[in-house]
């Protein structure tokens, strides 16, 4: 059963299509990395899912139910652009209000739990407006985690988080999806960070979904190659060509494609008097895949 199913969703502002017949499927329990340039329609899509905007056309289904179903929507936690908190109220009061909004049985217990998760338990009394950008982001995350969310919509949550904050963020998301079966839709520009935890990716460009695949597919499709460096590069190149079919020289690095085990290569070279100074398996990561996709799309 899919957490989010979107069929030909469109939304236009003053004639310009922010979201243009978008299709999207997010399986339940997934951490869905939503990637796209600034202004490609990421936030608009997320606002449509949370019901902040009214779609021109198209259909959104959350857990099989319509997205206007109150039952589903009470289980959605959202952090879009910034944490909507009252500046003059304290952090505790803001979270208390959200706890009341979700009708939680034990509001204070929940608040304590989420504040501990984001390591903000000692700043509950400060006014929201006097928190720094990073702290406001953590409070936004805490607010989205309140109650028992079945779906988390996070728009660039690691914006403004420091290294420690990002690590916590990763742990929270992995923990909440595996332990509680929650589904996470997370958008970010730091693809390296996203790659560490995302189980599915969706790449959007100018309001259209141009690629949607799981992390496993990504790995399969990614061309694996071994890149190595030796003192006598040309000599090694000729020898390797005899043994392995697809070998190429890239700058000072030799690339051996379609070959899984690096030991074989190292041993083969050592036997033939070439000592490897550097060798590691390389795969086309998310970043390269994204850049390649973007450049390909530019032509047509």
């Amino acid at each position, binding site marked *: 059963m899919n957490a989010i199913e979107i069929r030909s969703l469109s939304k236009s502002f003053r004639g310009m299509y922010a979201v243009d017949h978008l299709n999207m499927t997010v399986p339940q329990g997934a951490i869905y990395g939503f990637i796209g340039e600034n202004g490609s329609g990421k936030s608009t899509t997320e606002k449509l899912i949370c019901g902040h905007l009214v779609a021109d056309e198209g259909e959104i289904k959350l857990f099989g139910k319509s997205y206007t179903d109150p039952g589903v929507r*009470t289980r959605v936690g959202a952090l879009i652009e910034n944490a909507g908190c009252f500046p003059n109220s304290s952090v505790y009061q803001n979270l208390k209000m959200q706890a009341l909004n979700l009708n939680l049985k034990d509001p204070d217990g929940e608040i304590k739990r989420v504040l501990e998760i984001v390591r903000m338990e000692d700043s509950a009394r400060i006014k929201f407006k006097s928190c720094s950008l990073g702290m406001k982001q953590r409070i936004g995350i805490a607010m989205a985690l309140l109650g028992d969310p079945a779906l988390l919509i996070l728009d660039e949550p690691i914006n403004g988080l420091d290294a420690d904050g990002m690590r916590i963020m990763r742990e929270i998301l992995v923990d909440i999806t595996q332990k509680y*079966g929650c589904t996470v839709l997370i958008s970010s520009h730091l693809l390296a960070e996203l790659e560490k935890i995302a189980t599915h990716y969706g790449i959007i460009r100018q309001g259209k979904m141009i690629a949607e695949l799981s992390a496993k597919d990504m790995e399969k499709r990614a061309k694996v190659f071994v890149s190595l460096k030796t003192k006598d590069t040309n000599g090694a190149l000729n020898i390797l060509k005899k043994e392995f079919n697809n070998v190429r020289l890239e700058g000072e690095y030799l690339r051996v494609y379609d070959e899984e085990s690096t030991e074989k290569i190292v041993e083969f070279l050592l036997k033939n008097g070439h000592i490897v100074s550097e060798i590691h398996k390389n795969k086309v990561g998310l970043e390269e895949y994204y850049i390649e996709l973007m450049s390909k799309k530019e032509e047509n």
Partner: protein
Amino acid sequence: MEKTCELNFEEPSFFKRIKSMLGVDFYRLFHTPLFYIFLAIAAIIPAIILGTSTMEGSEGIGYTSAWNIIAASKPLYVIESIGDYANMNMVFIFGGIMVSIFIGSDYRSGYVKQLFTTHAKKQDYMISKTITCAFSMACMCITYLLGGVVGGLFAGDSVSFALNGGEIFALVCAIIGKMIMSIGWAALYTFINVILRKFFGISIALSFFFGTGILIIGVAGVFDSLHIPNVLLNAFLYGSSVFACLDSGVFPLLAVLICLVVSVAWTVIYIVLGTTILSKSDVY
């Protein structure tokens, strides 16, 4: 990796949804200074007016009885002098400003994102805001009453508190009538502020004008000149400013009833209107 545990979504009942939204609104009402500031304003104004009205030199507003500060002695279709303004209806002027700030801060702070994420139905928002604002305006009526009494005492002998039996009953009914009307006014102000959520300044100004009744009186004036039978219309348009008064000539309980009917009518109309508009348009 697919999660097998089935997530169940129990449908929250209407009352549970309203209860949760009310919880948020009342928590914010009691934990922010806005409510207390306006309660204070509602108390100070009558005290000042009554207090100054008896100073020498200024002829003041010519009060015969202290209770004029609470309700006009007779139904007033047309405001002639400042005196007619200075009665409990002023609560609805300040109430309008308070509601605008209360709802405005929802939108300005962005908290409305959380509210409308968890509440798919827009009428939860309208109903909860109406109830919260009605409650705060009712409290303002009470503090207005206290302020008036204190002002009267302070004014000393020149303002009489004498009331015969009938008038006391009428006074009580007048006050209850006004408090009931606050629900109607709350719905009206919620509607205005929800429609004009993007233009905070204008919504305050419009609420202020509605509150002072200028617009309503203007409309009544136009209707008069068109000679449309204005009794029912006046009742609908003026609501409390006409019928909740000391001696409305109508049996006081009937006056309260009229206020109730008008208040309910306003509430239903404005909530339904607000909900349809809200659900058709973007949240921000």
